[in-house]
């Protein structure tokens, strides 16, 4: 499992290097995800240890957002001043985005969803 965790870190490192060197608008970890995906395609299967390492990271994923979320304490004043545009913008936009994306996807992939 340690070897597979290392593989995940190497993929991220390569992703960061490529994103930085080519000044791409995509974050390093997302490129790392693409790289790991390509490796899995070439290998044709998910090694058991990698599945465990990935599963462990994903189980903990919600926790990983807590430190950044706590940054809210830096912006109490600005958030209070702009509460209405920010609150309404977030709420309406999130509802609309979920509805539009979900409805388009359900509509366009009709009849292909099962099997």
């Amino acid at each position, binding site marked *: 499992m340690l070897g597979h965790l290392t593989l995940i870190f190497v993929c991220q490192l390569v992703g960061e290097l490529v994103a930085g060197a080519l000044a791409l608008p995509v974050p390093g970890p997302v490129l790392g995800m693409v790289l790991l995906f390509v490796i899995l395609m070439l290998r044709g299967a998910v090694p058991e240890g990698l599945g465990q390492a990935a599963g462990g*990271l*994903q189980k903990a994923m919600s926790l990983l*957002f807590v430190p950044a979320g706590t940054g809210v304490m830096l912006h109490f004043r600005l958030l209070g001043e702009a509460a209405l*545009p920010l609150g309404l913008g977030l709420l309406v936009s999130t509802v609309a985005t979920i509805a539009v994306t*979900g409805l*388009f*996807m*359900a509509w366009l992939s009709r009849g292909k969803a099962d099997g």
Partner: protein
Amino acid sequence: MDDLGNLQETWVYLSASPLFHLTLTLLAFQAASWLFEKGGHNPLLNPVLGAVVLVVAVLVVTGTDYATYFEGAQFVHFLLGPATVSLAVPLYRQWRLVRRSALAITVSLLCGSLTAILTALGVAWLAGGSAEVLASLAPKSVTAPVAMAIAEELGGVPSLTAVLVIVTGILGAMIGPMVLNIAGVRDWSARGLAIGTASHGIGTARALQVNETAGAFAGLAMGLNALATALLLPILWGLLF
């Protein structure tokens, strides 16, 4: 008495150490997760939200600044990168399904990405948001590092954008399932794609807990929307302002 003095001294030292704030983050998340379980997975008890509220309360009460807290919390924060990379595994496992719907995914994602940008800008502008507020809000559906870079490019406040990104993620995880139920969207690929487009990693984390197909599509949508928004938003911003 000396022992008591030592204990106090040690405590003063430890309470400013990275170990303390790392442990605080983990304990707060455990407590919030326990509440979420006890509350029958009530969306209002979202564990990320609960943990943030608990941590902020402790920091405000003890007069600790965010920089001191982050020295410890950065070890948890750091793992976001590897966790994102690891999303290649569910994506690979669902690849047959993803490839079969490639066109549907592309069209739905572009519509969703445009909706996220334009509705956020439109509503916040109508509600009287300043240019700085609009620029900080516009990339809110995208994973934090990309959103912060875009906000900076448009003249927003990157650290405010990070917070708005997290709030969007929590909001999407909380109300997303309800919105999709009302819209009558039942299949897991469409539900996952919608949650991942609107609310990036936090939505993906939630989707993974519910269904592996939904999780894979959410992770894919998160990556694709980061790309789409980074390309589309600066162009739209230039046209609108």
